């Protein structure tokens, strides 16, 4: 096998036992790598019903088959898969930067971490030498301090570190794992799982070669992709970047504002991509082996947050900006910086704060409970103050909010559930689902909870390919088809920003895979693998009691509060009837039962017949 390392590393933090085992070519081909293979390893290495924070819940670090090659974006990636403390189902995230290639060069396709270290520790992987190191002195260090200190004490600038901050140590349910300062395994609380294992960081140095099967042809193919990355498919990311979405979504009445109270933001021009780039962006940089570059590095030039510096993307700008009613970019940049320091998901944190603001404005929580913070929409100082409290789990409210909106609403009680905007326990990302209804359906069925990156269902709505104010038959198939592609993108772990450069879609990706690995792969086989991964993830969620029709829901506000803003979207929200029609359409397009459970025939078709017992049990009313 080429490109793959052919080896899986196992670390038991409780006993300190470290071992390796081979990765078979069969498994590699069936699940590709990244989240696909990660979900397979999670399924095979966990017992049903294990709590996400139980030492037995495996935390699985993955590379992709392309990691360590010079394939643009595929070369620089890694992923993490585990049971999510936010949803109780599949948790996963992918990150680029510089960490992934060293992890592959050290000689591993995967690391399965189980157990719990007796005290705060970090894992030091120096090629074949793997050690569990003391990290007590790194307690409550920021992600960046941790990274810097580890590299200094191990004495090598080129060591790469993937770490958690204080939030992960304190089991925040939306804690992130971060590498290279600001590249995050952000969603679904993977940092919390790491914290529950007393694991502060994974540091790697890999010095081995990564070889591809057909170097001359791989070189040619990769050169072509680098050329395509010069434009036009990647223009957006290299110019305004994703913050371009602020004005686009605002014009569509799809810019969720003040916790989905409004769908347009009166301050949009002050937080737009245009304004950000003109006043704050100093330089646009990028990850290792990437021909696009998208990291808009923003620096605050003056005022109370002078000198604050952070990378800023649309999702986080939106969550801590419009969603909280905040129209000050200096405060949003500072908020982003501290969120990265604590190591939290930049989407969830904004939704959590907006939820608390909504509760505060409706008198569901009082000024006493906020420890005196005036948590009104638009209060930028309050945003920063409450982020610190959540990161530290300080005070009653800080502690409750670190649980994420779903659990916090239970703790707060009363009407709080109405303001908790999440699906399956994961906070909604930056789209107003009332006015983007394909997205509403797509997000509700995503296996990691509210997620725009499992099937990209916002795209047909935003691009005007469908009537976005309606759910109707046919949307299910769109979501199904796209989900297969997204699963492959995250299993090869190529960056989603690069998807426009694979002009021949599946054909390009299958070719890319074969040139690197030497394993023959047809377009059909690859699409089937994408479907296999989706069905496997669904089975995992079903096994954990989180994967049937009753779990595919939408937040209260999306269904009950019509858009009040003037314009074409006025009065729109998702009604239960159309939503149920959409679910039925989706399940049918997947070959799933009306309960949203994969049928035995479907499982056999995708090569998961051995797991049919999970589906059968669920159909009979068990989990």
């Amino acid at each position, binding site marked *: 096998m080429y490109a793959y390392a052919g080896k899986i590393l196992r670390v038991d933090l409780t006993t300190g036992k470290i071992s390796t085992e081979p990765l078979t070519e069969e498994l590699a081909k069936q699940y590709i790598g990244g989240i696909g293979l990660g979900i397979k390893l999670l399924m095979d290495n966990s017992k049903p019903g294990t709590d996400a924070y139980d030492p037995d819940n495996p935390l699985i670090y993955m590379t992709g088959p392309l990691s360590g*090659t010079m394939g643009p974006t595929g070369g620089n990636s890694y992923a993490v898969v585990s049971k999510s403390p936010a949803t109780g189902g599949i948790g996963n995230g992918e990150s680029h930067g510089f960490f992934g290639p060293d992890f592959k060069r050290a000689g591993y396709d995967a690391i399965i971490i189980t157990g719990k270290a007796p005290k705060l520790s970090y894992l030091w992987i120096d090629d074949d030498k793997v050690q569990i190191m003391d990290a007590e002195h790194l307690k409550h260090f920021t992600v960046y301090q941790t990274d810097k200190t580890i590299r200094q004490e191990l004495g090598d*600038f*080129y060591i790469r570190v993937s770490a958690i901050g204080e939030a992960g140590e304190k089991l925040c349910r939306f804690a992130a794992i971060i590498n290279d300062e600001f590249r995050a395994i952000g969603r679904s609380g993977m940092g919390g799982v790491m914290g529950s294992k007393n694991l502060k960081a994974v540091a790697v140095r890999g*010095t081995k070669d990564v070889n591809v099967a057909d170097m001359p042809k791989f070189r040619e193919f990769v050169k072509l992709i680098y050329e395509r990355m010069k434009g036009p498919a990647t223009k957006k990311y290299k110019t305004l970047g994703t913050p371009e979405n602020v004005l686009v979504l605002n014009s569509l009445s799809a810019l969720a504002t003040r916790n989905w109270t409004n769908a347009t933001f009166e301050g949009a021009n002050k937080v737009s991509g245009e304004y950000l780039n003109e006043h704050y962006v100093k*330089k646009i*940089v990028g990850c290792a082996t*990437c*021909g696009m570059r998208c990291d808009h590095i923003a620096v605050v030039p003056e005022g109370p947050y002078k000198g604050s*510096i952070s990378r800023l993307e649309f999702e986080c700008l939106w969550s801590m900006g419009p969603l909280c009613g905040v129209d000050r970019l200096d405060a949003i940049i500072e908020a982003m910086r501290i969120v990265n320091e604590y190591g939290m998901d930049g989407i969830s944190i904004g939704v959590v704060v907006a939820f608390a603001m909504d509760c505060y404005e409706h008198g569901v929580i009082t000024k006493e409970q906020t420890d005196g913070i005036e948590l009104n929409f638009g209060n930028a100082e309050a945003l920063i103050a409450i982020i610190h409290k959540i990161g530290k789990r300080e005070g009653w409210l800080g502690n409750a909010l670190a649980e994420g909106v779903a659990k916090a609403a239970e703790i707060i009680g009363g009407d709080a559930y109405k303001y908790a905007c999440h699906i399956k326990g994961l906070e909604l990302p930056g789209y107003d689902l009332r006015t983007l209804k394909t997205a509403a359906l797509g997000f509700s069925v995503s296996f990691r909870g509210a997620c725009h990156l499992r099937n990209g269902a916002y795209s047909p709505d935003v691009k005007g390919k469908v009537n976005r104010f309606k759910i109707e038959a046919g949307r299910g198939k769109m979501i199904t088809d796209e989900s297969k592609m997204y699963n492959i993108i995250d299993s090869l772990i190529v960056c989603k920003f690069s998807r426009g450069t694979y002009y021949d879609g599946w054909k390009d990706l299958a070719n890319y895979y074969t040139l690197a690995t030497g394993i023959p792969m047809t377009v059909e086989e690859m699409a089937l693998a994408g479907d296999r991964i989706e069905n496997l993830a669904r089975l995992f969620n079903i096994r954990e009691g989180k994967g049937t029709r009753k779990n595919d829901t939408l937040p209260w506000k999306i269904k009950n509060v019509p858009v009040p803003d003037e314009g074409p979207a006025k009065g729109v929200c998702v009604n239960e009837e159309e939503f149920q029609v959409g679910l039925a359409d989706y399940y049918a397009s997947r070959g799933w039962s009306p309960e949203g459970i994969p049928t035995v025939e479907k499982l056999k078709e995708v090569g998961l017949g051995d797991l049919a017992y999970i589906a059968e049990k669920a159909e009979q009313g068990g989990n």
Partner: protein
Amino acid sequence: MVRPQDRKFVTADPEKCIGCVVCEYACSMVNENTFNPNKSRIRAMRMGPLTNLAVTCRHCEDPACVAACPKDALSQEENSGIIRVDENACNGCGWCIAACQFGAMNMHPEKKVVFTCNSCTDNPDKEPQCVKWCPEEALTFVTAEQLAQKSRQKAVQNLFQTAETPK
């Protein structure tokens, strides 16, 4: 006969380089037929998101590495300025690594002798591949005089605030 001032070397523009290490992968690909930055003759440094630069051998006049080598394993090619390593003589002591101000001398992870930029003269491509692959067009293969001219042009342009492009 090439005059010393005509010697070309690879240099990175600090305003353009973003530390993406594509140059490292290109170098190891063409010179070592593998992907491994540890075997690259050019290394990019990312000190922080705003501070990035790729660095390689500048083919100095009177090179410190050659002077430092106790084994006489290094020599400078007259025409190109390329530092040649006699792999039989080099014992990997690392004096040259310490002597080079640019960190352009590297220890080969397997051969245990030093290696440095050969301007791609040892591989079939014959011209510097890092320059060809850099997505930011941050790298150039230039003489010291060309670099100086570029700086002078920029300085004068700034002074006159002119958009006129140099002839």
